[in-house]
């Protein structure tokens, strides 16, 4: 699958849908997209890994960096990665990325919206 980062808006929030393999070769593209989004100072931003078929440690590190930058910019960042995406979800779980950034099952069930 060709790597691509698509910009979409879900539930009124900007979302970056990451398709393909997120690794040392493709990480710069995601970094650029994240920087571009954060530059606009949105209240929240979603990085959606539903269609990400592979993520290596460089990809994980980029999520960490994105989370730190978002925090600095006052943007609440959420990562979407369903349990069914075992390959990527396992990496997230191993690294315990959810302790830094909320990782949710789907874009429609993010913390900010449930029950609000």
């Amino acid at each position, binding site marked *: 699958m060709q790597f691509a980062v698509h910009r979409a808006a879900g539930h009124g929030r900007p979302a970056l849908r990451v398709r393909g393999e997120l690794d040392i070769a493709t990480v*710069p593209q995601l970094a650029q997209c994240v920087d571009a989004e954060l530059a606009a100072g949105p209240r929240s931003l979603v990085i959606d890994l539903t269609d990400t078929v*592979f993520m290596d*440690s460089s990809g*994980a590190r980029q999520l*960490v960096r994105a989370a730190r930058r978002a925090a600095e910019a006052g943007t609440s960042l959420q990562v979407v990665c369903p349990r069914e995406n075992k390959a990527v979800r*396992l990496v997230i779980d191993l*690294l315990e*990325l959810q*302790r830094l950034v909320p990782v949710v099952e789907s874009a429609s069930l993010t913390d900010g919206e449930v029950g609000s």
Partner: protein
Amino acid sequence: MTRPPATAPDPLGRLVDGDALARCAQEPIAVPGAIQPHGALLAVTEPDLAVVVASANAADVLGTDPSGATLADLLTPAELDRLRAALAGDLAEADPLQVTVGGREADLVLSRSGGLLVTEWEPVAGAGQAGAAWHRRLPRVLQRLSAPTRLEGLTGVLAREVRALTGFDRVMVYRFDADWNGEVVAEDRRADLEPFLGLHYPAGDIPAQARALYATNWLRLIPDAGYTPVPLVPPVVPGTGAPLDLSGAVLRSVSPVHLEYLANMGVTASMSVSLIDRGTLWGLVACHSYSGPHRPSYADRTAAEFLGRTASLLLHTAVEAADRDAVVAVARREADLAGAVGRSPRAPAAALVDGEVTALDLLPAAGAAVRLDGRLHLLGTTPPADRVAALVPAVLRAGGATDRLTLDLPGFTDLAADASGVLAVEVGGGRGDYLAWFRPETPREVSWGGDPRTSKVTDGRLSPRRSFDRWTETVRGTARPWRGHEVAAARSLARHLGEAVLARAGEDDRLATALQRTLLLEELPKVPGVALGARYRPSEADVVGGDWYDLVPLPSGRLAVVLGDVAGHGLSAASVTAQLRHALRAALLRDEGPAAALAELNRLVTTLLPGEMATAVVARLDPASGELALASAGHLPAVHAAGGSAELVGDGRGPALGLLDDADYPQARLWLGAGERLLLYSDGLVERRDRPLPDRLEALRHAALAAEGGPQEVVDAVVATLDPAGTDDVTVVGLARV
């Protein structure tokens, strides 16, 4: 023969519409069949000097009806002698002969056409005279003309001196480009007139026929743009059936279309002098009056033509000097940039983008793109990043340079404004890196000398603005062409950059490999009661990963085993790895347990190496009791092979290093029985893009269970069974109690 073509000099007067242009293109330019009324024309036979054709005003101008006469009837014997002497030599040398006809002084100008001698009689009375003073100044004027080394200087002096000499209200120097579009490059004018400097005209404003005439005929004059043409009688030369060719005649009548345009623009008199560079029409000196008829004397016109001829000789040296300056300037900036890259070979992009001189300064362009190490940097005015990423590779495939993008390549019509000109060069290294420069569509680069909307000397239909608009249409989609020395400088800079990047990559690889080697143990330590095995296999790709392992005998007699992995590759990952390895070793030597050591290491990463991320697993074995304390910071689970089973160690897991500012790590406690093994490994062992990670972990568990022998044999067997992809480092450490 009703509509003579537009042949008069003035570029601003050449605002012909399409129909008129079409007619002009077909009309014989040299045979208008009429002259202007400020003189009379007689075509005579040689050697009899019998009048064959006469202008209808000849009797008025000469005071005698010349029909059936010879020149002997009009001239005194002395004048006739001078005429005959002139005819024996070069006619141009003799012009003008000063004669008196009908009691009036006149300048007699001679030329030959169709086997006849053409004599033109221009009364001296009524002509403007710059006077002797100007002619005495001629040496100084010539000195001023030849002093400037730059084109702007030369054309500026030319416009000023021609105006001082001839007294026109406005004198412009008009330059043609390769497509015969014109531009006003110098101007001297009455202070109250709107400037025309910088105006552009489409090639169509001066028809090709007119240009051909200008290349051989140095000066044209219309002293009264409101004149009524005077027909030649008879209209065709008797005995030939052809009209008289007036291309060499100074009184030649011009197109009524042209006169109409002059009138519309308020021009009452005009004159032009050709500028010819080594046989090719280069431009014109165009002169206007707006305040009634204006006729410089023949002598002053000759002087103006002389200035034009002199400037013509100087043109190519001035142009070449300007070129030389441009070449030198580009070469100097190329050296500056290459030097900046040389001074900071690790950050060539910064050298080209952030320095005092940037890639954009290399050559005249509105924007530049620098793509190095896969990262795109934009400078100045460029298309958006995503379009640049599509555009530049397309231009590279098409040869690397275009000055008419939308005409050369399909699919980029949206970029005409900013990037009608693209110059692109590849930077070696196989990463698709490049440098590119962008030039806007030509009309965007051009400024008006004055505000065209407030033009006072123009009307709507035939305004310079309209001509500018038509010129804009002609050059739409095109940019200023890339010059040879500019392309050469761009290529040279790219070559230099490619070498620097390659050298840096090679150096980085050597450094990183050397660094990595210091991280691996030459020899596994001998620890009583413990058997150890280790395997490190570097990645097949030419990059160094961030794996490390360590075996730290502790003062208590226990042994700490470490396996870690820093996210990323290359020199920076290797140096982070070295720091982590030594910091963790120091923390472990306090012997407060794996969890405490990882918590301390995590603090170090978040404070000293922000933005880095690593995982590590630490196992501390007491060889005497078999007690194992284990903590993992985001690392893949260790494998505990005991008797007939192999389990992934799920306890003692905390977040990866660098994730949280302050993290606590749980510590698992388990027992390593005699003959049992513990395997620690990096993700390179199990990561395969074609297989989900959970499956690979399951395969690892089975391999560890199946392997036999000591820790080294088990490690080797596991690596062989799992057959990891060669894209990442593979590190495996095994231990057992003996």
